[in-house]
């Protein structure tokens, strides 16, 4: 069974939700503590949402220096599948595993809504269960979700198909080009602002569309 680690930083909030999503997708969730120095041999890692270190200094800026990140960064560069959700995306950007930065929402408010997305790249480790162009609805909730990057970087991301998901209907935070998520060149590291782990059960989510991110990794690892 695919073992998927979920790192808990001080201030992580959606760690249990990410573990549940892995379980529902058929994987084995493994709780990882930020101060540990071992990834415990997991097959993939999720950095969950939340406000690690209270978002003090900058969202993700302190978590990026956690001891376990010292292990994760080289592993990710070597191909370990990593998904950063919301605050996890912010941590990955701060760690330069992904390009760009997440700035405060254009509205100045925290926003929580059921958000329509279009999957733009269904080739990554975390999106292979979707079809390119497929539209899904998952919760979005963030304070600092406005993706931004230099014009060159944006052009590069767009040209290489590294924008993996885009906001549809409403751009909730002012992200450039409606970007909701991006991937690295290898396609193993994905950052996503919305929260697929909150859309894995019809009882508690607006849809079960989010499950695809987790089944992608679980099935991909089994098939690999």
């Amino acid at each position, binding site marked *: 069974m695919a073992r998927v680690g979920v790192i808990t930083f*001080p*201030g992580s*909030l*959606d760690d*249990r*939700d990410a573990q*549940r999503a892995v379980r529902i997708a058929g994987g084995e969730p493994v709780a990882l503590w930020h*101060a540990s120095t071992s990834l415990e041999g997991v097959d993939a890692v999720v950095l969950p*949402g*939340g*406000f690690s*270190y*209270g*978002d*003090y200094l900058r969202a993700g800026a302190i978590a990026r220096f956690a001891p376990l990140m010292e292990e994760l960064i080289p592993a990710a560069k070597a191909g370990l599948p990593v998904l950063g959700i919301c605050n996890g995306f912010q941590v990955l950007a701060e760690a330069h595993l992904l390009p760009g930065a997440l700035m405060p929402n254009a509205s100045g*408010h*925290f*926003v*929580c*809504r059921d958000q329509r997305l279009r999957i733009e790249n269904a080739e990554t480790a975390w999106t292979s269960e979707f079809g390119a162009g497929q539209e899904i609805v998952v*919760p979005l*909730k963030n*304070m600092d979700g406005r993706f931004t990057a230099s014009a060159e970087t944006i052009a590069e991301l767009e040209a290489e198909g590294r924008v993996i998901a885009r906001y549809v209907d409403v751009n909730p935070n002012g992200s450039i080009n409606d970007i909701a998520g991006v991937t690295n060149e290898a396609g193993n590291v994905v950052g996503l602002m919305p*929260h697929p*782990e*909150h859309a*894995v*059960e019809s*009882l*508690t*989510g607006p849809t079960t569309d989010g499950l695809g991110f987790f089944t992608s990794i679980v099935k991909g690892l089994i098939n690999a």
Partner: protein
Amino acid sequence: MSEVSELNPELSPEPNGVASGPRTDGVARARATPDHPQPYKELGMNDEEYGRVRDILGRRPTASELAIYSVMWSEHCSYKSSKIYLRQFGEKAPKTDALLVGMGENAGVVDVGQGWAVTFKVESHNHPSFVEPYQGAATGVGGIVRDIISMGARPVAVMDSLRLGAADAPDTRRVLPGVVSGIGGYGNSLGLPNVGGETVFDPCYQDNPLVNALCIGVLRHEDIHRASASGTGNKVILYGAYTGPDGIGGASVLASATFDEESQAKRPSVQVGDPFMEKLLIECSLDLFKAGLVEGIQDLGAAGVSCATTELAAGGSGGMAVRLDAVPLRDPNLLPEEILMSESQERMMAVVTPENVEAFMAVCAKYEVPATVIGEVTDTGRLVMTWHDEVIVDIPPRTAAHDGPVYERPVAVPADQAALQADTPARLPRPSNRDELRKTVLWLAGSPNLAAKDWVTSQYDRYVLGNTVLAQPENAGVIRLDDESGLGVALSLDGNGRYTRLDPYAGAQLALSEAYRNVAATGAQPLAVTNCLNFGSPEDPGVMWQFARATEGLADACLMLGIPVTGGNVSFYNQTGDVPINPTPVIGVLGVHADVRRRTAMAFAAEGHKLVLLGTTYDEFGGSEWAHVLYGHLGGTPPQVNLPAEAALGSVLVTSAQEGLLSGAHDISDGGLSQALVEASLRGGLGVRVALQGDPFVELFSESVARAVVAVRPEAEARFVDICAQAGVPISTIGVVGGDSYTVDGAFTIPLHELREAHTRTIPALMDQ
């Protein structure tokens, strides 16, 4: 720096902070200087109370002892004006096995079955939220969350009940956005879903907004913890944030005095919150409980160290010795009496056996939570505190924590009460044709109190923890407790200041009825009650009459409905000058779902399902939303209370949910049947077509109690009729779900897009200006 520095005018801090030595106002000095003048009046104590402290101690209190008694005997901490009325919640409590811990602890604990228990409580943070809306509201959330942790429970959701001045008043645009950001900023950072509440506007709250925050926590039966310090030699550990000058005097001065122009100058008295530390405190505390390292626990809220030490010592078997100079400080210049009164947030106090101290410290270190041994449990029966080895406090702890003054304040019917009730809405012109009826629907749907509150709730995380089954704008918040069995709870928080102003006895019962109905509408069996009683000054006999009547009404109704009060909070002095707010008891009802997968949602989303109105509609418009919105009128009497009908309606809704008979259900309250149809229809994205018998105005807008409108699954119609007949609930089939408009035959048709526009644009238009 603060009011408290005046405690001892002769005493100024040394350059490097330590005010010790011969000039410290210790017990020895207090004995030696019996006539030393003390600023007890500035601290909110009267001559009699001060005299009583002197009698208890047999001498004048030290500055630190005066600080302790003044905060512990403040209205906020001692309930001295309300106590004689609150007793009836216990005396009239219905017989129930559901209560594992009753009133008096940090929060009541309710048995919800399968070995699970739930604790829930609502508290006000009204005055701080007016002075500094963001921090006032944020720390209101923080305080109630710590109450829940200190029962041994994991907090799993929050709710908030907000009341503000007129929606278009300039100050409302300062207070509401600040309060919402504060609740969101704190609650979102803790990872607690916000699952419901209210946002109500009325000019009476103009300079006195109400911010009532509720938290619900879950625990196993065997995990209940209490505030008591037992076991001589056990250590007293203060853990969490360092102590600073935040909110000094907050408890006694801010919450126990009427607002005036000076309020703005009290900004430093409002506490500042750090939700990140609180999140660490939650996880750290739960780990400490799980490891069995805690003998007694108390959160630090109003009155800080004073409250925690006296409560723990009074709740235990013996006494306590505390080295106050061991308290870690953020500001080294704090005087001992300031440390005692500081309301710095994110702090807890635990009693730990000596052999467990090391393990306790290790858990705190894991979470990087500072923890310090500041004293130990003794067998002296006294709370003794030292400051650099000098005794500065030596008191019997019960005298501060439990045996404060109790007042039976004068009570008198307000002078205008009879005239108010005589001024009925009968004189108000009603819509006289189809077009006016149509306009009335839209006016009400878009009026600030009934309009969609997405502007507020979209700033709150309702998804975190992954157990939110229903959240605002649903009838009630529903949370799953157990993934396997589906066990869960429903909670609703309701109040109506206008009803209560017209008739306080009925008003409190109507708030309870509405919360009960909301919980039942989801299919949950109502189980227990909490309350936050927001009133004006207890020194005003008219206000005290309102309080007496409202508490009596609530206690009587809880007895009749068979659901006990588990705890609550009283907030007095909600007034500006001589003008009190409308008396506003906010009532929370908790219900249990054996399986949340059986819940009923409010949306009408199934084409062709029949709409059935449950209950009886009377011509009742006193205190109604219609009279308020169209005429700014408040007069007459509120809708007639009918608790047996409420219970019968509840039983129908619960049984129907369990049997899966309904595709949607919505309670009928503010704005009447019309507003219920608007909300359920927009929620489901499908229209409704109804035909009404009788006067369409009364049918659509009356606020008669014990009613709901439901959409019945076609195959379940016969069974549903049977259940209603057995319960004695009158029903009438009024229409059908479907189409893309809200249509009342022979009266009007409103396309859903027009309705949605009217319902959703109001609050953003007011707040985003």
